């Protein structure tokens, strides 16, 4: 699903966020990216979402080489990917329903069909009863779930999440992870950046550890799902 080959990202200041990184995520996998802040987690996700382009190397997502995606085609490309953000990035001037419906409105889905899909997505994150409320009246955990509902409403094959539990307490974090897990069970590929190693280990998923823009050698016992 995701394939990085010798990817380097250098910023105009000369600072390197990723240095010759190669990695692969298979279809249907749920993979975590860990590392300290500045290790390159966010940059990795931004390259996949085509917010940035690599200085060197190739990023291939679902068979598409992102360096061949023209600027004009970026919106269509992004519509295939669900994205969840640490700060939710909700629109606070409209109710929950409209927030979740946004990807469908952008894709030009008809009114009735959109309504059905939005309710299904809200049901999956347990917020069906709050569709008419405004995001600012919701708790941080609920807002993040609205963000997740928006990311999955158009049923993407790939979901990327940047520190989705960064602002949540352990209990809420676990719940968000459980939601992700359920999507994974129905075949969605997930790539989640997180620094919450304890939580990741409880879930028993593969972990890609980054350090200074390179893969860090993870000691074998730490990835043992049975621990």
């Amino acid at each position, binding site marked *: 699903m995701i394939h990085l080959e010798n990817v380097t990202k250098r910023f105009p200041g000369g600072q390197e966020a990723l240095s010759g990184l190669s990695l692969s995520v298979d279809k249907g996998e749920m993979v975590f990216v860990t590392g300290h802040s500045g290790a390159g987690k966010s940059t990795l996700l931004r390259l996949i*979402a085509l*917010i940035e382009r690599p200085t060197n190397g190739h990023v291939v997502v679902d068979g598409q080489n992102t360096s061949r995606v023209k600027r004009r085609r970026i*919106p*269509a*490309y*992004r*519509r295939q990917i669900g*994205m969840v953000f640490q700060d939710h*990035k*909700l*629109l606070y*001037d409209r109710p929950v329903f409209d927030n979740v419906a*946004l*990807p469908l*409105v*952008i*894709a*030009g889905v*008809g*009114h*009735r*069909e959109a309504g059905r899909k939005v309710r299904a997505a809200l049901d999956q994150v347990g917020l069906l009863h709050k569709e008419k409320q405004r995001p600012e009246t919701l708790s941080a955990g609920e807002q993040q779930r609205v963000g997740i509902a*928006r990311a999955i409403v158009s049923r993407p094959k790939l979901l990327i999440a940047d520190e989705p539990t960064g602002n949540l307490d352990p209990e809420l974090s676990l719940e968000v992870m459980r939601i992700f897990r359920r999507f994974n069970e129905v075949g969605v590929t997930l790539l989640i950046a997180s620094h919450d190693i304890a939580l990741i280990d409880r879930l028993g998923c593969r972990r890609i550890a980054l350090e200074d823009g390179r893969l860090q050698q993870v000691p074998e016992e730490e990835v043992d799902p049975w621990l």
Partner: protein
Amino acid sequence: MAVTRNADAVAPVRRSSPLAIWFARHMGVAIGSLGRLVRHPLSSLMIVLVIAVTLALPAAVNLVVKNARSISGSWDNALDFSIFLKQETGEEAAAGLARLIEQRADVESVSFISATRALADFKELSGFGAALDRLPDNPLPHTLVVRPSAGNTSASLILLQEELGNLPETEYVQVDTEWVQRFHAILDIVRQAIAIGAALLGIAIVVIIGNTIRLDIENRRDEIEVTKLIGASNAFVRRPFLWTGFWYGLAGGLLALGLVYYGLFLLQGPVARLAGLYQANIAIASMSLEEAAAIIGVGVFLGLFGSWFTAARHMRRIEPR
């Protein structure tokens, strides 16, 4: 793609036609943009008012020129020719000539002013009475005042003037058209000036709308970023701003029409009084349907152009960070 189609075949979903969806989407955005304007009535009204005044100004001046033209045009056809006959022409011959000219199709009436009467009038009006009495004989010729019929064009008037000038009895034909021609030349200059002024004001409207849309875009920057992040195209994020420009232009055009009509309404009384004084049938020519439609059309066009110009520039710049 084939996979999706297969899936649809298994579980058919009733879809509206693409055109219907496109239309519904546009209507949704249009109403949304209008709602946004209505929610800030004061600032919206200010901009609409500026656009309306800017549109109404050239429209009103144009209307004034149009009226001046139609009034002076009616003078144009009612110009009298004065034919001064040769001194040796007798009074009988002159009166006969007057009757002859009157029978022409392009002449409405001819009044004959004999030399004697002309002298009497002149004595009375000029105050040179005593001096004129001393003249051995009457220096004034017989005069025929010819009023052409209303059906004449300017070309046929020139022809008539020539023919009257070629009569053996004619000394000189005087037509007082020069000042009318000058007046028309002035009107032409005013028209040109309106065209130039209107073009400048049009630019002003584009700048005003563009600036308003720019502020609007700045205010909604986060929203645009998030929407683009989710996969919205430039066209998608631009659409509400184009509709905002459209509404500004439409409202401005309608209000401009209202202002012009209100101005006409205010002028109706004074003009009727003036017409009464001159015992003339003067009515202000109002705007034609085409002119009214043109004002609204220009408003909408400038609104769309201003917003499109600004939105296209800024949308490309705002990218998710």
